[in-house]
């Protein structure tokens, strides 16, 4: 009921909602007849909000939180990989093993590198393309559509496709570079079998696949920038770089934050796209944390150790993301 009493002209939305939640005010008499019949009349604003969030909350609790708790608990046990096998409580032993293991340390570094490569390339390309689309206006619609297409392709397909494009002996990329005179022989670059560059190579399909996402999100944000603001800056003589860094990017900040956080998290979790290209090789040079944990669990048969590694991985991602959120974007409290 309190929601019906927010004063429209004040504009101080969060303040009104926060104050209104505990302080029901009688609706204007003219409208109260309708409200008497409406559902949820007895609910406070807070209660109404909770009721709307409850189904999603229950779902996430049952199918994310509960499995996660079990996963974290598993990290303190030594578990036989056979179904119904023995469980022994071992305290922090799995954590000690994980931190001491070189495989875990290396995989952590690789995960960070992989994420940085993907996000940097995607953001730079994505913003550039979104700006080009904005600059070209309505006529770029067809191009926007075409550009979006890789977003629809499964990572497993993208990984296989790029493996096929980059494969040592019959990859078309090296063949075309050779024919263009850039390479002196078609097998000069061993994209996926040279341990020094494989981590970069496996990131290419990820960039190809999801730069469109960043473009889509940033382009949408660009459309919402008030035209008169840009015009005013232009009239004041602002050149494009200044326009970009002083007006466009600051205004896009919440949108950029969403795009970067979402993509950063996804890149740090990348699994199938790497698995299908190199299976973590050559010489383990593309074994990121998600691959290492999967293997430790399924192939090496150590679910307890895998759970401990996964818990560390999760906590670090949490810490990084929460830092990112508090620094650049505050969910649910953004002033308008």
């Amino acid at each position, binding site marked *: 009921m309190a929601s019906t009493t927010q004063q429209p002209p004040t504009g101080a939305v969060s303040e009104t909602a926060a104050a209104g939640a505990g302080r029901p005010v009688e609706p204007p008499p003219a409208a109260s007849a309708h409200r008497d019949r409406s559902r949820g009349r007895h609910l406070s604003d807070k209660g109404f909000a909770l009721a709307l969030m409850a189904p999603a909350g229950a*779902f*996430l609790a049952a*199918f994310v939180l509960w499995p*996660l708790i079990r996963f974290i608990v598993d990290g303190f046990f030594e578990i036989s990989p056979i179904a119904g096998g023995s469980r022994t409580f071992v305290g922090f032993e799995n954590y000690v093993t994980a931190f001491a293991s070189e495989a875990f340390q290396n995989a952590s570094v690789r995960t960070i590198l992989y994420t940085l490569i993907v996000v940097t390339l995607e953001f730079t390309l994505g913003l550039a393309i979104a700006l080009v689309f904005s600059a*070209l206006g309505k006529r770029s619609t067809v191009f926007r*559509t075409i550009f979006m297409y890789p977003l629809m392709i499964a990572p497993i397909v993208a990984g296989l496709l790029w493996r096929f494009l980059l494969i040592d002996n*019959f990859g078309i990329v090296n063949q075309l570079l050779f024919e263009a005179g850039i390479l002196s022989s078609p097998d000069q670059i061993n994209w996926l079998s040279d341990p020094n560059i494989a981590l970069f190579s496996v990131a290419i399909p990820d960039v190809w696949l999801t730069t469109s996402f960043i473009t889509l999100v940033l382009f949408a944000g660009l459309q919402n920038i008030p035209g008169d603001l840009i015009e005013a800056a232009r009239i004041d003589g602002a050149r494009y770089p200044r326009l970009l860094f002083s007006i466009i990017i600051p205004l896009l900040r919440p949108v950029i934050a969403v795009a970067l956080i979402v993509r950063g998290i996804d890149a740090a979790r990348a699994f*199938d796209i790497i698995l299908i290209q190199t299976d973590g090789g050559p010489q383990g040079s593309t074994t990121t944390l998600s691959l290492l944990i999967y293997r430790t669990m399924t192939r090496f048969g150590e679910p307890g150790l895998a759970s401990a590694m996964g818990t560390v991985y999760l906590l670090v991602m949490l810490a990084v993301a929460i830092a990112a959120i508090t620094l650049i974007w505050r969910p649910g409290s953004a002033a308008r």
Partner: protein
Amino acid sequence: MNGLETRGRSRIILWVLLAAALILYGFPFVYLLLTSFKTPLEAIAVPPAVLPTQWTIENYVSALSREGVPAALINSVVTAVISTALSLVLAVPAAYAITRFRTPSGRVFIVAALVTRMVPTIAVGAPLVEIMRNIGLTDTSFGLAIAHTTISLPLSIWLMASFFEAVPDELDEAAKVDGCSRLQALWRVVIPVVTGGVAVTAIFAFLASWNEFLFALLLTSIRAQTTPIVIANFQSQFGLDWGGMTALAAVYSIPVILLTLFLQRHIVAGLTLGAVKG
């Protein structure tokens, strides 16, 4: 459009740059299509050629007649549809509550949704294997759809929240002044304004399921196996059948690419709907 448009010569340069970028961007999939029309032998010829010397649908016939392939395609559709519906039904009201009421619980909720997105798939997937076994949903499309919704729901809440943010509160207020309840204001006034956003969210939810791999690997074996698993198995199971793989990859990717082209109208409409000014 707003004042970001350019005119004159720089416009031509931009068009040329864009065309070049798009050719590079489009080449991988075009090459996949071209390869799928080569003979299986030519697909792995050294040195490779861009165009097939002899066009054939041999790869398509062999890939689609493989055991398990038609069933996997059907499973992918069923799983994705269930998961999309589930995501929207759960995400739309939640996102609306978060953006409109700004209660502490809403803030906790969107952070929780965000945290869910940070969870490595394996950390949920491994325990889900046992949970699905306990509730009798192992190797079923519904069980897999639930797992896929754990991925798409947080993203859907985020997307819907940003679409709702773009709708001025005055719109809800006006609806309420006109005598709508809070639920009616959401259903009759706000949702029609964000249909574009709902469409975009649905596309992303559908794709999250359609393209997902690890949950499908862990939670299905025979009956509910989806196409990404079958595509991944092409190399090990059938030797290095790159021709067949490209054909099945094309069959799997083209419908969603076309669907998106068809829904592009809605996406653009959704993205420009911020123009609703009070």
